[in-house]
């Protein structure tokens, strides 16, 4: 190394980097969501002791699974400053098509998953292509796709809904079998969350998704192939929505043209509650999955304490607003403390 000509006088001695502190803080966002889940669970159990039964807990996990799975792909898209509103429709389409193939073509069970994922990936590829090539805002593209696919779905179903007897038993087992008391469905989703969650932290292309959402201009200057990365995010989101369709079929064994109706809003809400910034750049898939768990726990908790079902949605909405407001306030506090810590630094 070249010896410096001028003496360097650090303002303070170089300290060990504060990695543990920051890491703890980053984890805290997810920990906070988890703590809320436990809190809601606890409060509900105090009013209704049956809420803590193993059957009820399985219900909580299963009920959150589909939204959590879709939330993984949604997070990848939102992080890049885009949004995917077509996930609910995509799930409905893939669920019906796979169910229809089971009853008419008797395809093998494993291929049901493959086809479901392929259908979703195709929808995602169309979303991604139009968003990145034609530069149409993804809100518009995926909203249009939401209606187009729902329409296509209705045309395909045409009153001929898939009913339980038409789906292979082995396939349906995925929906209700458990391992050590944990539903298969929850395990599959947890594995996806873990893999994507790890990848989002660990691989360069995944980090570039965050960079794109954080500052698109700087991302371009840094030579990041933004269009390609955003495209992949949409394909992944679509593929996971497709997989969600297969799991929907396994869970309910019955599909009409309303499958997945309105899921997109639950998915976006789960991601936001779980700490995914709606304007991109930050948030984790683990957070989104926990957000899905929180929303589902709140909903089922309201049922368990027998509040008027009229108020269920309003209360869920109010809690959503409260969660996001608290999150914003915390984020502001953290930003301020970072700034003042730095100020103190400079005083030294």
């Amino acid at each position, binding site marked *: *190394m*070249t010896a410096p000509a001028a003496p*360097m006088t*650090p303002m303070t001695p170089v300290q060990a980097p*504060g990695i543990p502190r*920051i890491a703890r803080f980053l984890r805290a966002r997810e920990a906070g969501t988890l703590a809320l889940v436990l809190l809601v669970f606890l409060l509900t159990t105090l009013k209704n002791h049956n809420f803590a039964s193993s059957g009820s807990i399985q219900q909580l996990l299963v009920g959150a699974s589909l939204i959590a799975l879709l939330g993984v792909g949604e997070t990848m898209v939102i992080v890049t400053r885009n949004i995917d509103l077509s996930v609910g429709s995509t799930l409905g389409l893939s669920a019906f098509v796979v169910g229809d193939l089971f009853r008419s073509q008797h395809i093998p069970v494993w291929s049901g998953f493959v086809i479901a994922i392929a259908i979703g990936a195709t929808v995602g590829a169309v979303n991604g292509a139009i968003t990145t090539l034609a530069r149409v805002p993804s809100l518009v593209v995926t909203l249009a796709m939401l209606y187009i696919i729902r329409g296509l779905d209705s045309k395909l179903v045409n009153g001929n809904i898939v009913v339980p007897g038409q789906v292979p038993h082995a396939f349906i087992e995925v929906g209700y079998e458990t391992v050590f008391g944990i539903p298969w469905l929850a395990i599959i989703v947890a594995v996806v969350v873990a893999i994507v969650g790890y990848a989002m932290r660990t691989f*360069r292309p995944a980090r570039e998704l965050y960079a794109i959402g954080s500052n698109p201009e700087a991302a371009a200057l*840094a030579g990041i192939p933004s269009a390609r990365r955003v495209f992949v995010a949409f394909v992944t989101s679509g593929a996971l929505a497709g997989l969600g369709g297969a799991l929907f079929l396994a869970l309910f064994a019955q599909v009409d043209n309303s499958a997945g109706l309105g899921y997109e809003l639950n998915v976006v809400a789960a991601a936001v509650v779980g700490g995914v910034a709606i304007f991109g750049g930050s948030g984790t898939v683990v957070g989104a999955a926990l957000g899905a768990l929180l929303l589902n726990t709140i909903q089922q908790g309201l049922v368990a304490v027998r509040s008027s079902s009229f108020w269920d949605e309003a209360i869920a909405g109010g809690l959503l607003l409260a969660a996001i407001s608290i999150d914003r306030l915390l984020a502001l506090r953290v930003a301020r403390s970072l700034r003042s810590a730095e100020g103190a630094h*400079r005083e030294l």
Partner: protein
Amino acid sequence: MGAGDSAGGLEGGDGAAAKVAADVASAVAVLELRHAAKSFGPVKALLDGSVELRAGEVHALLGENGAGKSTLVKILAGVYQPDSGQLLVSGAEITLHGPAAARAAGIAVIYQEPMLFPDLTVAENIYMGRQPVRAGRRIDRGAMNRAANEIFAQLGVVLDPARPARGLSVADQQIVEIAKALSLDARVLIMDEPTAALSSVEVERLFRVIAALRGRGAAIMFISHRLDEVFAICQQVTIMRDGKFVLNAPTGELDVDTVIRAMIGRDLGEMYQKTGTVPGEVVLAVDQLVRENVFYDVSFNVRRGEVVALAGLVGAGRTEVARAIFGIDRRTSGSVRLLGKALPNGEPAAAMAAGIAFVPEDRRQQGLVMDLAIDHNVALASLHRLSKAGFIFRSAERRLAVTWAERLQLKYGRMRDMVSTLSGGNQQKVVLGKWLARKPSLLIIDEPTRGIDVATKAEVHRIIDELAAEGMAVLMISSELPEVLGVSDRILVLHEGRLTGEFARADATEDKIIRAATGQVAKAAA
């Protein structure tokens, strides 16, 4: 890039040092630009840009606003391709096809406001796309943070590589950019007015960093309007004027006077015609105006028939003073009186009602509705006078617009045309017309001729002169010294939020204004 270059600039450092040693030994400029020219349509932004950067030297690039410095920087950064001229890196001619090519050639530009990823950590900002990886192409965060820390240690600064970039001060953001440049083995660092937004403590730290960079053998180009800084840290000075190279010399052979003379040194010409008016009563009285952290103790008057210029460098607080007078920004203390009547704090509507018109610098965003017709735009600020019982009479609107269009010699197709179809100069006239239609007693006009062609410029100057001759009080903010000297009766100079000079038209010279604007007042008096 694979795991081999995981430590970024650290392992590469020895190689770079060897390269640098070779550069120093051969005394060949690391980066040389020869006679570069660049035009944008009819506008010749750069006529002869020449500069020679050597290893281990800090080289100042000086010139007034519009001298062609930014164009030159953008050519070196690969953002613009010159129309003619040569660019040599270590003596070999190259062409930069884009920012990536400049980066590959070892040239890094640190802009005044760095562009970071606020949500990512400091270390990731430095190594984005080049993060150190281990087996399986997994990012090695530990190695990345250590590498960042090692660069910070070389620079003699303390910065937590694992903290998010959000909330970093501008000074720290620049450090991150410099660290990124080092991790890329940049041999040339171009700093475009890095000190403009820094406090004095931060400037000191930056200077220590620059010294450390010099020690590593980097060639540094330093652009600043603050001459004391230039004399403190630069070994070479290159001065530009009107898009041309004028002077290059070691700092030791120069003094402030020579530098200032080289920066201005041009005839004012007979472009400006000034009607002699005798200023009347005080229209605007600003007393002890303060906006915390922006400007302090600003007091002055503007009289009827008088054009007062507010001069100073970009960022000195000129526009902010105007905004506080008009009430867009709240003042912390002090008073603003119009024709003897105190104006309330932070109420533009009251300022408008009292008779102030404010023509902002950014016409597109603040002054005009681009998709609306010319006549609508002209009438926009006078609607209450044109309406009866809440209805606006289209004919009255049209009449008003035509009157002002004639008066201002607006070149337009039809009154119905959208304002966006007009040229920049004519857009400026529409903004002027919009405010003049209100018959204000005080006109505040910010950079009246920025971005408009020479002919229209002269017309705008003539209009300002006429308005003053008719008894309007005019407060003009301008960065162009010839304009300041040619148009105004009195010149106020702001430096870092404080008034540092006031000159009557007769005693004002470019030299005096530059001294006041760069904080050299004490020396000027001596």
